[in-house]
C-alpha cells in the first residue's frame, strides 16, 4: 500500500473526482456538513459542487471553514482522508473561486506545474 503522504497528490475539484479514482489527491473546500457519526463530512469546492470525505476514525475536533483534505479517491468517487488541514481565515477570507481557477490552470499547463511520478513498492 503506497503511503499517500509521501506520494505526489493532484489538486482537484469535485468535477474531477471521477477521473482520479484510486489516486492520491488533494481537495480544498468549504465545510458544508458533518455526518453525525463523525466519520464523514462534505466539502463544497470553488464551483459549488460537493465532495464527500470519509474518515477511518471519527473526527476528534470541531472543524469549520476551509479544509484541505489529502487522501485517496475511492471507487465511489469519495475521498478516503489520510490527513487534513484547516485554513486560517482569521485575518483574510480565502477566495475559493480563485483557488478553483488556479487548480484548473495547473491541469491545463501541467508542464509548468509538474506533478511527481507515483512510486510503487
Amino acid at each position, binding site marked *: 500500500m503506497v503511503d499517500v503522504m509521501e506520494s505526489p497528490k493532484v489538486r482537484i475539484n469535485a468535477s474531477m473526482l471521477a477521473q482520479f479514482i484510486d489516486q492520491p489527491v488533494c481537495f480544498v473546500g468549504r465545510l458544508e456538513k458533518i455526518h453525525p457519526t463523525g466519520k464523514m463530512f462534505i466539502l463544497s469546492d470553488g464551483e459549488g459542487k460537493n465532495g464527500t470525505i470519509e474518515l477511518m476514525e471519527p473526527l476528534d475536533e470541531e472543524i469549520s471553514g476551509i479544509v484541505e483534505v489529502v487522501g485517496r479517491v475511492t471507487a465511489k468517487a469519495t475521498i478516503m482522508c489520510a490527513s487534513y488541514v484547516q485554513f*486560517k481565515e482569521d485575518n*483574510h477570507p*480565502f477566495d475559493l473561486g480563485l483557488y478553483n481557477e488556479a487548480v484548473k490552470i495547473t491541469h491545463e499547463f501541467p508542464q509548468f*506545474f*509538474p*506533478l511527481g511520478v507515483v512510486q510503487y513498492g
Partner: protein
Amino acid sequence: MSKNGFGSYGGISAAGGAVGSNDPPSQGRAALAFKSIRYRSRIQEIIPCCVNQLLTSTVIDNVFMIRGIEVSQVSIVGIIRQAETAENYVLYKIDDMTTKPIKVRQWVGRDRAKQGITLLPVGVYAKVLGILTCSAEVKSLEVLKIRVLEDMNEFTTHILETVNAHMILDKAASGQSVPVVSSEMDEAQMHSEYHPDFIRKEVLRLIHECPQQEGKSVCELQTELSNLSIGTINQAIEYLTVEGHIYPTVDGEHFKSAD
C-alpha cells in the same frame, strides 16, 4: 516580495542614475527625461516554483536548470511537515503536494542558537525563499526567508505565479515574444485623430517648423492645437522630450526640435 509582478519577466531592470549631461537639468519635464533612462543589470531573480520542479531539476557544475532555464533563488509554498533543530541550523521539511517533501535548512548564528530558536509550527503553510543547493545528490534549499502564511490566498497566488513565471520564461527561452493583448480602446483610437501617435507627430511638426531661436512655447501650441486639452499637449511634450526629439530652451515652457 511575495507578490512580484511578472508582466515584463525577461529581466528585472534597476533604475540607473542620471546619464551625464553638460546642460544642467531644468525643472519639470527635462529633469524627468534624464531620470527615466534605465539600465539593465544582472539582478538575481527569485523564481516561484513547485517542489517537484526543484527536485527534478538537472544540476551540472552547481548550476540548476528547470526546462532549460537556469534557476538559483526560488520561492516555494508548502506545509511544514517536520521541524528539527541542530546546533546552528533548523531543518524543516516542506510539502506542497507535488512530490515528496523537500528539506529546507535555515542557518542560525551561534548567538541566536544559544538564546533558543523558536521553531515554526508543524502543519501550517509557509512561504520559503531560498537558494537551491545539492549535496550528495540530494537537493535542498538554503533558507533566505521563511515565514508562516497569514493570508492563505498567498498560497493560491503562488500557484498562479509559478505557472505564469515558467510560461513566460519558457517563451523567452524559445525566442518567442510574449503576445501583447491590445485593448479595444487602442483599436478605436488608432483610427481617430486623437491617437497619441498622431498628436505627438503634430506637436513635433509645429515645434520643428518654429523659426524662433527660443523655440516654440507651450502657450502657442495650446492656441494652435485648440481642440486638444492642455493635459494631452503636455503628455505629448513629455514623450517627445524623453525620446529625445525635442529639448527645452530658455525655460520649461519653450522647446526646440532636436532633429
